[in-house]
């Protein structure tokens, strides 16, 4: 118990004095997982739209793969990406192993099925006639797609937050492909493991608090946003 209390105290001191390791790992985590979420969105939303709106051979197979992908164990992703990126691997020539890019790739693979799958569900949950209505009011195909994304955005935002939460809290894959290199690929989760190894529980706790704060803030922001539409009206009426 003393350990925890003392750890909490030390953790706050480290956070508020801007301990260099804590700051470094936090920024690296945000950079890595932020990029990964952004890329997952850019890839996943069009793919989700395609799967929701188009019918083509092999579509069901892809949907099944996406659904299975939502439960993909991150460690397995890490291992496969590592094998591909090793110097001896197919993409070894890119020299991406133990870089932020490698971590981003692994995280995109973890988050992408979530974004695609939830986009697909979100679009399919909309009234299919909304599409006709938009077209019937003079929207072009792309304007109609923008409308669909807007209509489904709350569900899709939940997908983003879920994906972000999953990858920023993930340790197995980033450790495997990033290597937890100080100053380069050390992120919050791998730093926590390292600090426990070093017996520095205060730093480990400080890092854990920041990780918790980030995931909580993201979830809280989403909740606020989801409630906004209804809330504003109720206040003014």
């Amino acid at each position, binding site marked *: 118990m003393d*350990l925890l209390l003392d750890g909490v105290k030390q953790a706050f001191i480290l956070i508020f004095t801007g301990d260099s390791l804590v700051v470094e790992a936090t920024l690296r985590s945000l*950079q890595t997982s932020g*990029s990964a979420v*952004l*890329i997952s969105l*850019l*890839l996943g939303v*069009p*793919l989700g*739209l*395609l799967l929701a*709106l*188009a019918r*083509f051979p092999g579509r069901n197979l892809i949907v099944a793969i996406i659904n299975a992908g939502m439960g993909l164990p991150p460690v397995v992703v890490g291992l496969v990406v590592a094998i591909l990126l*090793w*110097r*001896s691997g197919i993409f*070894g020539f890119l020299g*991406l*192993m*133990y*870089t*932020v*890019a490698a971590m*981003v*790739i692994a995280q*995109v693979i973890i988050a992408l099925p979530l974004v695609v799958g939830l986009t697909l569900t979100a679009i399919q949950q909309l009234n299919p006639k909304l599409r006709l209505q938009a077209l019937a009011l003079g929207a072009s*195909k*792309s304007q109609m*797609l923008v409308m669909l994304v807007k209509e489904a955005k709350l569900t899709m935002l939940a997908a983003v937050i879920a994906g972000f939460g999953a990858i920023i809290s993930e340790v197995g894959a980033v450790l495997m492909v990033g*290597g*937890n*290199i*100080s*100053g*380069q690929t050390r992120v919050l989760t791998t730093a926590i493991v*390292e600090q*426990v*190894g*070093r*017996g520095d*529980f205060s730093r480990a706790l400080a890092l854990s608090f920041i990780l918790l704060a980030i995931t909580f803030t993201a979830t809280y922001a989403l909740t606020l946003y989801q409630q906004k539409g209804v809330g504003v009206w109720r206040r003014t009426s």
Partner: protein
Amino acid sequence: MRKFVSAAVIIALFLTAFTIMGCSSQKKAATSIPKETAKPADKGTIILATTTSTRDTGLLDMLIPAFKKKTGITVKTIAVGTGEALKMGGRGDADVLLVHARKAEDEFMTKGLGKVRKDVMHNDFVLIGPKNDPAGVKIATGAAEAFKKIAAKQANFVSRGDGSGTNKKELSVWDKAGIKPAGAWYIKTGQGMAETILIANGKQGYTLSDRGTYLTQKGNIDITLLLEKKKDLLNPYGVIAVNPDKFPKVNYKGAMEFVNFITSGEGQKIIADFGKDKYSQPLFVPDAEKTAK
């Protein structure tokens, strides 16, 4: 419809490519700016595969910056167990190894996977366990005898079981004692030294640890040091440059710079001084100059 969607997919792919490129260039910028000297990035990067004990004790935090300052080479340290470090070297995925498992190291060399191997330093293993010492290992003359006592009592023994250098050392001691450890009392964690010590603490069992990791965890546990400074508890570390004839992609030049640095007077002094301030005793004893003579 399809035309539009496929166009969107292509655009997204391009964006991804740019973002990844952006990330990696950003990363280069981020790492080179704080340590800006005369174009150190040009000197290249080496991947050092080593054991968790060298990182967790903090030794690498002293050695790597000094090496970078002297040579301009960036070191990517991947801290894993000795077994995995040797495997990375055996695949050509690391340029230089800093490990402690003499038998396995020699095998590595005879297979031609390594080009150069040098002794670097040693520390020693310690046997730690519950304060009341149920197996009575305190009075043992060596590790093998202590292990026999533990086995006879079937007292909890926590093994790393991860093929690391420490694990290999532990198995060789069991071997010497003529015992094949098995049963509920023999617990394999499959994890690093620090985690294993914490598990031993929780299970009130014995475990074999390197001295450095024990010292870092000492404040967090109530199991204690029971046996030390015996002949069969020495833990020698070697440095190996991976063979470029086998793996043309390895940075052999950079690796040799690291080998030379860590065995040089400067590197050896850092090792000799390390830990004096924090633990009031050095954690490692330099060996290189002694063997070089």
